[in-house]
């Protein structure tokens, strides 16, 4: 089953996504696909905070800031029965989009990531994807940021259509959108 978990900054979506993945996995293998590149101080702090949260819960962490589909070959035979928690789509989208100069178009970005997500969803037991709600601040952004929002919006919609469950996390409370 694929589960999509949406939330804003500080909404508690990561904690809820972990709980969801643990419940789906049972005794099966658990992988955490980490998309954030732990470059500067603030990103590193966030990565460390999430590492601390996951500690002792049995996740194998795979750093996958781009090309999420490659995680399949890294998991090998274990992939089929595994529960995979991908955190998060908003980072992955930025990493893919801005990995080239000039950046990819929103359509190219969404196509590339959608291909990876489809491979993952079919190759693993359960896929839990964390994504951001970056759409409701009422600010009209420049071309590049708007293209990013468009790519992520398209991916959220594609995933939501395929997912068995879609949950928005609000102040730590899961609100079911679908399923």
């Amino acid at each position, binding site marked *: 089953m694929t589960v999509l978990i949406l*939330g*804003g*900054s*500080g*909404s*508690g979506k990561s904690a809820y996504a972990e709980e969801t993945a643990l419940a789906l996995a049972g005794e099966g293998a658990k992988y955490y696909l980490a998309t954030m590149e732990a470059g500067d101080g*603030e990103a590193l702090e966030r990565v460390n905070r999430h590492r601390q949260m996951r500690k002792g819960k049995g996740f194998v962490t795979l750093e996958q800031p781009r090309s999420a589909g490659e995680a399949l070959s890294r998991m090998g035979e274990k992939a089929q029965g595994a529960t995979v928690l991908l955190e998060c789509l908003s980072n992955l989208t930025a990493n893919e989009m801005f990995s080239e100069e000039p950046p990819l178009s929103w359509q190219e970005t969404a196509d590339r990531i959608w291909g990876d997500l489809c491979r993952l969803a079919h190759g693993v037991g359960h896929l839990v994807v964390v994504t951001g*709600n*970056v*759409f*409701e*601040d*009422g*600010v009209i*952004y420049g071309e590049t*940021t708007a293209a*990013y*929002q468009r790519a992520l919006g398209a991916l959220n919609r594609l995933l939501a259509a395929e997912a068995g469950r879609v949950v928005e996390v*609000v*102040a*730590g*409370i899961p*609100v079911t959108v679908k399923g």
Partner: protein
Amino acid sequence: MRLIIGGYAQGKADYAAGLLRGEKWVMAKGALPREEEVQGKIPVVDCLHEWVRERLLQGGRPEEELSAFLDRHPDCVLICDEIGNGIVPAEPFDREYRERTGRMLVELAGRADEVVRVICGIGQRIR
């Protein structure tokens, strides 16, 4: 404690007023009501996010200060904008304000007797 959240201009304060009809209450906007104002009334904090922002700018500890306020006034009503549903801000302070407000809401929701999310003036009780 009752927590009322939602986007900007969604009718949260009106919703709170409806909720408190017939009760004695005192509302402060972007601030915690002072003890001498409360005097047995139900304290209502509107625009809690503005208070959080102000306390952070002043070098305060909004989490601890609000927790102490809740200990004194477990019957209060807190109204806060959801400010985390946007593009990550460029300024470090804006990022911190946004994230700490979000995490405070998670904490507050865990402590609340009731959590209502207001959209288009309509309150959905999510806890």
